[in-house]
């Protein structure tokens, strides 16, 4: 073993002699791990906080029973249901005010009946003792933050009442970080005692949501079943957002791995001679493979750790933007501090090590298969690449025609990327062949031919560049197009000068009255809203008072000739694009809406409604109130003479004490929306930029490593009488040509990607389509970026070449045999 460590030493010392190669490997793996784990950290943080916010959403997603007339359910009714075979578990939930004034929610439950239907385990269980939970002095389960809040009360309890139990003792505090803050969970007996509600419950949770037996006759007038609202499932709504981020981070990971591949490939190729010596000294193939794997494992795990730290840092940097967009889009609340489970570190490490071993697989096999005596020769571009690329493209076309889910949309994108990556070397070769065909002089011939020779060793870096550029063009185009569409839409949609929301009906009345007295207010447009469930989807109903403000400005995607008149006179409705796509509704359909008096509604128009995750139906306020009496009113849009806006806002604030969020002028609403928009895509754009920089580094490192091999290829040309200065010029030109061609090919690819994003991914993820727009200025920028990174990448190797002494060039002959 000790003596064999000399083999590892011999292998590892290679990196000491080639620090740049090591740097490539480190940079590649570091950025791959960092970007991947960073985004995963964001996703996990978000998921964790959805769980945290709701404690156990899926439990609440089960139906429950409440009393029809009162808050409390007599316990006997629970027993009656159980003895009639109902799978219900009793709950008691009420707010209590602590001596210090803070309000906390007390939840009493019965773990014995609760456990019955739950076969899944979670963290709570491992430390849970049923008999301690059920026996004096009982237990109180709470989050660490709540425990901190309550500890003083436990240290210094009042003589009687909360938190003492009926026997005057203090219950055990049990801290668990899966619980929500400001909630105490305890046994029903203690909860009933503290709330002084003997034999009373507040909810009966149905353990089996498919249990559909009608209530026993004696209880039909007493209890009411409530089915959960599916829109509480934030996680489901935000899935598409996280999928977007994941897809982008996976791309970054792959680009990073490409760098790893070039480094590992080169390192192994350069050690062919070393392999021969090791064999000669009596190292077997298996031993060599073992030590090479050990080396890779060692390196990758060493690099993964700073990579994870960088990932953490990236996540912390992006978290404010991500949580802002999630809050804006979905109303999801993410705390701004990162809290990560241990699994994140493990999976990140595994990803890094696994990725490295995976990328090293082909070079390793190549190295072992190559006979020691046979020297490595330039492999050229295998035909299999083109064939596989074609097959992938074919699969992409099939998927585009057949798939209709979000996942298939992403798979389509992945296939497009893969086929583009596979086809790029062949395409470049074809283009250069064409150039070679038309070349006039012998130097030109050499120029083109040598460029072709360079495609194979540079292909991985060029593919990385292609990916980064096309992603940038695609995603950038989508975001930019969205921004334009969105701003235009806001301009139209926000036609009223002032928007206000009253605190209650009474205040709404007062405000309305007050407004009618103001001559500068040319129109008062009240609106109302209510929510309904349609096929288990939450739908928002909006009522407006028909007015020219809407008919003149509201942007419609599809409409009957007299939409707005129909809305007013025939109780017709308009729906947003999301709902139209989701339900497959079209103009002229008759809609049946649950809970309405009217049997059906004529669909007179479809409007775009960017950023809204929910379906929305717009109708006249009268129609809404007639059919849904529980409509919430109190929102107004006001048309005001423009120069009178500020004084009016001032007076309104003064008279009604309206807070900033209840009273907004048009500009404030626009600013707010645009700000939210920017933040929504800030994370996307930041990731985009990171991918591009990784690709630039990939190109740089490939060139750097290539330059040493180039020596033998350039030396004969030099020997034939081309000056070193010219050689450098040609090398640079050749490289810029390759980068330019790649960038040019990235444009159609980027357009294809942006097309997929706006017409497939967005529609499937968010429910709205965007017009497909393109931004040639952005392309030019990308071409310049490609040339710039190629230039930067080529600089160092070329300076080296320029400085080589003639003897060094002569070595090119000696080493080449």
């Amino acid at each position, binding site marked *: 073993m000790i003596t064999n460590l000399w083999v590892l*030493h*011999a292998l590892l010392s290679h990196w000491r002699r080639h620090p740049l190669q090591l740097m490539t490997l480190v940079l590649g793996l570091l950025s791959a791990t960092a970007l991947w784990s960073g985004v995963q950290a964001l996703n996990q943080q978000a998921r964790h906080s959805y769980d945290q916010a709701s404690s156990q959403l899926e439990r609440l997603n089960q139906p429950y029973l409440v009393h029809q007339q009162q808050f409390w359910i007599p316990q006997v009714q629970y027993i009656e249901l159980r003895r009639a075979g109902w799978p219900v578990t009793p709950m008691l939930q009420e707010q209590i005010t602590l001596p210090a004034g803070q309000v906390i929610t007390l939840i009493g439950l019965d773990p014995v009946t609760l456990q019955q239907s739950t076969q899944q385990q979670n963290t709570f269980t491992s430390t849970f003792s049923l008999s301690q939970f059920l026996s004096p002095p009982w237990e109180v389960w709470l989050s660490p933050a709540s425990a901190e809040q309550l500890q003083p009360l436990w240290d210094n309890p009042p003589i009687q009442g909360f938190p003492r139990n009926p026997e005057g003792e203090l219950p055990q505090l049990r801290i668990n970080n899966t619980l929500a803050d400001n909630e105490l969970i305890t046994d029903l007996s203690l909860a009933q005692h503290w709330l002084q509600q003997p034999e009373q419950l507040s909810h009966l949770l149905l353990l089996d949501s498919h249990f559909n037996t009608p209530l026993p006759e004696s209880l039909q007038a007493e209890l009411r079943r409530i089915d959960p609202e599916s829109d509480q499932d934030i996680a489901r709504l935000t899935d598409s957002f996280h999928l977007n981020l994941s897809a982008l981070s996976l791309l970054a990971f792959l680009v990073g791995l490409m760098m790893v591949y070039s480094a590992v490939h080169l390192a192994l190729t350069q050690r062919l001679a070393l392999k021969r010596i090791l*064999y000669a000294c*009596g190292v077997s193939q*298996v031993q060599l493979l073992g030590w090479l794997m050990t080396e890779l494992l060692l390196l990758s795990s060493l690099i993964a750790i700073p990579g994870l730290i960088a990932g953490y840092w990236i996540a912390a940097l992006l978290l404010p933007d991500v949580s802002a967009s999630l809050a804006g889009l979905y109303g999801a609340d993410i705390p701004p501090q990162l809290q990560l489970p241990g699994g994140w570190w493990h999976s990140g490490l595994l990803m890094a090590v696994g990725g490295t071993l995976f990328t090293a697989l082909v070079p390793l096999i190549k190295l072992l298969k190559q*006979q020691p*005596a046979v020297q490595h020769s330039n492999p050229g571009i295998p035909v299999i690449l083109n064939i596989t690329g074609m097959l992938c493209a074919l699969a992409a076309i099939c998927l585009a025609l057949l798939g209709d889910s979000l996942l298939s949309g992403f798979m389509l994108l992945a296939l497009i990327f893969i086929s583009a990556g596979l086809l790029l070397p062949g395409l470049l070769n074809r283009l250069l062949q064409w150039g070679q065909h038309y070349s006039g002089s012998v130097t030109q011939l050499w120029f083109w031919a040598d460029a072709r020779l360079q495609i194979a060793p540079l292909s991985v870096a060029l593919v990385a560049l292609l990916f980064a550029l096309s992603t940038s063009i695609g995603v950038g185009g989508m975001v930019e197009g969205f921004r334009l569409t969105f701003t235009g839409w806001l301009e139209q949609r926000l036609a009223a000068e002032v928007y206000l929301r009253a605190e209650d009906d009474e205040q709404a009345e007062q405000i309305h009255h007050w407004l009618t007295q103001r001559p500068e207010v040319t129109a008062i447009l009240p609106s109302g809203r209510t929510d309904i469930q349609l096929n288990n989807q939450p739908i928002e109903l909006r009522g407006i008072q028909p007015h020219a403000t809407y008919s003149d400005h509201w942007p419609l995607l599809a409409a009957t000739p007299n939409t707005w008149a129909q809305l007013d006179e025939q109780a017709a409705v308009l729906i947003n694009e999301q709902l139209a796509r989701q339900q497959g509704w079209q103009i002229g359909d008759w809609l049946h809406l649950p809970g309405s008096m009217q049997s059906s509604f004529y669909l007179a128009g479809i409007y775009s409604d960017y950023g809204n995750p929910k379906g929305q139906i717009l109708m006249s306020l009268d129609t809404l109130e007639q059919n849904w009496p529980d409509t919430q009113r109190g929102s107004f849009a006001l048309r005001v003479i423009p120069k009178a806006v500020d004084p009016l806002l001032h007076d309104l604030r003064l008279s009604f004490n309206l807070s900033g969020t209840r009273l907004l002028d048009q500009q404030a609403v626009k600013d707010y929306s645009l700000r939210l928009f920017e933040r929504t895509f800030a994370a996307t754009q930041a990731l985009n930029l990171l991918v591009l920089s990784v690709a630039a580094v990939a190109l740089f490192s490939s060139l750097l490593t290539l330059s040493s091999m180039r020596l033998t290829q350039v030396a004969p040309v030099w020997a034939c009488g081309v000056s070193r200065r010219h050689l450098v010029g040609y090398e640079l030109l050749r490289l810029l040509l390759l980068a330019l061609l790649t960038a040019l090919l990235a444009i159609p690819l980027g357009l294809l990607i942006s097309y997929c994003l706006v017409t497939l991914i967005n529609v499937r993820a968010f429910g709205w389509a965007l017009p497909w727009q393109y931004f040639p200025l952005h392309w030019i920028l990308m071409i310049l970026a490609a040339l710039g990174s190629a230039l930067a990448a080529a600089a160092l190797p070329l300076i080296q070449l320029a400085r080589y002494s003639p003897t060094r060039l002569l070595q090119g002959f000696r080493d080449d045999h």
Partner: protein
Amino acid sequence: MLKVTNLAKSHSTPQGTLELFRGLQFSVHSGESVALMGESGCGKSTLLHLIAGLEDADAGQILLSGQDVTAMNDSQRARLRRHALGIIFQQLNLIPSLTVHDNLAFQARLAKCLQPDRLTQLIETLGLTELLPRYPHQLSGGQQQRVAIGRALAARPTLLLADEPTGSLDEQNADQVMDLLLTLVQQTGTSLLMVTHSQRLARRMDRCLTLHQGQLT
């Protein structure tokens, strides 16, 4: 010592199978030095690789101190090379990332038979004392080959296989290296099988074999 019987080997090339030799028979006795000559591409190097177990024979037997190399698996061959064989190629014999000293000790360390006294003696004989802390790329071609000889002999092999060890050196350097090689082989009683193009060098050996159209003469 080394006994080769009925050895056959062919290479597959894009133009079809190329037979290098068939029914090859020869032996090298203990302490004997044998030159192997022949035209370029006649299979001399391949023959050396076969004996070293670096390539597989198509047929035949290679007995090295009574053990059949052709019947061994990869790890057995590796062990054989480590303990019983020294191999010197025309060039690129050294581990570029290790110092001269570490290169010299490398195989002996692997074989767990490093004797510091013997190594010092070898170093002195080869005139490498001054060069010990250097790296291979800081050496001249002749110096590199001397280190290679040292590395091969430090592990006390019974048979030294050399593939044109002085082929990339100028005549003066080549003679110097060859003198050292032959001296050391004689001193240590190691058998030597050396591929060479040089009649002059071949004459300095005990015996000379020529490979011509797949046959030894």
